[in-house]
């Protein structure tokens, strides 16, 4: 573990699956995890905006993460979930294939994202956690959802 730049704190993440890869988001920004409910399509909106749902009287937009990352599309099934997150005072939902667990990862296990590609998606990666032979991609949720307006 060569990187010790972030200090020795232990960080907590919610991990989920998308396109057979493991991803994680900071637990502090996760508000709740729901099953897929009825989603109302937003007219003339971006492709990756799946629509909006009624979350206890609040109307919140739902982002299809597969579409956002330009992965192959997949119809929602029993294991599909919506992760509700609050970023910069705006509540959003992310559709993922399935949610796995809550992980405690020491900061030293996290490596910065390799400068592998000029690929669009790499800008949303905050780092990569290596543990027990697993590689978990940590998402920079502020960039992912905060970017919304610009795109």
């Amino acid at each position, binding site marked *: 573990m060569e990187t010790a730049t972030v200090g020795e704190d232990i960080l907590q993440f919610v991990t989920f699956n998308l396109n057979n890869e493991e991803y994680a988001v900071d637990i502090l920004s996760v508000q709740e995890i729901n099953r897929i409910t*009825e989603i109302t*399509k*937003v*007219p003339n909106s*971006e492709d990756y905006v799946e629509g909006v749902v009624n979350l206890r009287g609040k*109307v*919140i937009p739902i982002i299809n993460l597969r579409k956002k990352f330009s992965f192959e599309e997949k119809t929602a099934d029993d294991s599909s979930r919506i992760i509700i997150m609050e970023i910069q005072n*705006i509540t959003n939902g992310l559709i993922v294939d399935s949610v796995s667990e809550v992980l405690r990862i020491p900061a030293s296990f996290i490596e910065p994202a390799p400068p592998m590609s000029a690929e669009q998606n790499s800008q949303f990666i905050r780092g990569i956690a290596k543990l027990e032979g697993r590689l978990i991609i940590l998402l920079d949720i502020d960039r992912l959802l905060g970017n919304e307006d610009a795109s």
Partner: protein
Amino acid sequence: MTDEMEEIISEFITEAEESLDRIEPLFVELEQKGEDRDLINDIFRSMHTIKGAAGFLGYQLVVDVAHSSENIMKKLRDGEISLSRELMDVILKSIDMLRLLLDHIKEKDGIEEDVAPLVKELGSALSRATGGQGEITVKVDSHNQTSAQQQEETVFSKLSPAPEMDAVSDRAPDAPASVQAERLPDAPEVIKHLPDAESLKEEALALNDTDEIKNPAIPPKDHGLKLKDKSAQNLRVDVERIDKVMDLAGEVVLVRNRLLNLSHYFDQKYNNDPQSESLTETVSFLDRVTSDMQLAVMRIRMQPIKKVLGKFPRFVRDMSASLNKDVELIITGEGTEVDKTVIEHIGDPLTHILRNSIDHGLESTEERVAKGKPSKGRVKIDIFQKGTQVVIEITDDGKGMDISKLKKKAIDKGLITRDEAAKMTDKAATELIFMAGFSTKEVATELSGRGVGMDVVKNNISMLNGYVEISTEKDVGSTFRICIPLTLAIIHALMVEASNAKYAIPLSPIEETLKVSAEEIENVSGQNVIVIRDKVCPLFELNDLLHTGGNGANKADHKYIIVISMGDRKYCIAVDKLLGQEEVVIKTLDGIDTSSSFVLGATITGDGKVVFILDVSGISRNLVEITKNS
């Protein structure tokens, strides 16, 4: 700084700003009416209160400015000097300075304005007016000032030892405040808080000023009563709290809608069951109560539009002076109440229209005389409620708009083509002034004519879900009519269906709904149109507008058509089905860009589904574009 002190200061700022807002139009009124003791007294008192409170809090600059202009007011009141334009100008300047100083205090930016030149100007204006007796006057006054300050500190210290001033008025049984509270046993809304202390203080000041009160025999508590009455009527509440109540009321409306659906279902299923009957009864009672509650909550947010209009007399005065035009401003219906959001957003559009009317609408005095009109130009602002809308009309008696000039200008600016101009009706042509980058004045003046402004009018007003229209007649004048719905949170909507999705269309711009057969729809150079009572109206498919991908309506023999009328624009939207009318609560959409989606917001229907509310004014704005593309 302690919290209590912060509170006192912020209270001071609010009150002082309110006083300034209130007295500013009075100055202009005073100027028109000439000497009016009541007005002068009113202004004098307000200035005095500001000065007193500022002195107590140690804002010396505010005291200096307020004191100097107060000196002038005092002389005016006592009839020692008479009002002149010069005096008025410096007093108004001092009001501006006070605002600036208050801003600095509010921002805590520590910036110190140099008030000395202004104080000097005030002093010399006064001494010129009195014919050189200014010096003595100031001395006498500063004596008064000291004693007034002492007195006010006495009063204030009586109240201030306990940080919670409201508590004082509760505890001390002899304090006038509690006398007041006892006098109003039927008014549960009596809120004993800081402003009471302020008004008491003001009252005490007024009492101590022997010039002010001619009959010192009046017992103090009666005065307390008079002022307290006023404060008992008003209650300052954090807007956030009101919005929270608004939100909750909205939720109740939604639940009510769901219950109505359910009770309707049970009613049909068990229509002879007494329990079901009483459920229906209960729910319909809830229905009524909810509607009443909604209205009541909405009214909390309503404020008289006067708040916005207060600055206009001064604005018109300054503007007429700098343009050398004689202008009279008449305002009616300033008590009309509108939603707080409207108050916040209507100021700019009104200022722009007013500016436009005075600068572009009204002729110069010579021109008016030559035309045989009264030399004084007149601008009228009429505000009234019409149904569920508030109408604001701004009328000038100027030269009216020159349609051909407008068209020519728009062509020159490349905003429209020659062809378009030729086809354009006169009414449509007047709307050209709302296009971005349009300005008809040859030379841009300092005040208007930068080509920005009028498009702001249109934008702000459509943001409020309203519309603006113009009527004009050569040499008679022009009228801008702004129509805004009373409330923005809850609207009546027509529920429609397109491609199996429900949408809500605000009811106010809907003129009628029609069922037409496919043959009645004609196609004129690529654009579908329909003839309604001999008038040709463009027709759009909701499916196309929203790019839902479906074109279900095309298959059917019949179409349901909704005729929308926005100002002078009229167009039709074809939908698959009409579902009925519903009261919907507007939920804002955060986190998605809806600027091009023709969606105003969303609502949640009785069955818990999200339904989008269409932005018909947005569609109307894009009409030209759509027409061109199709």
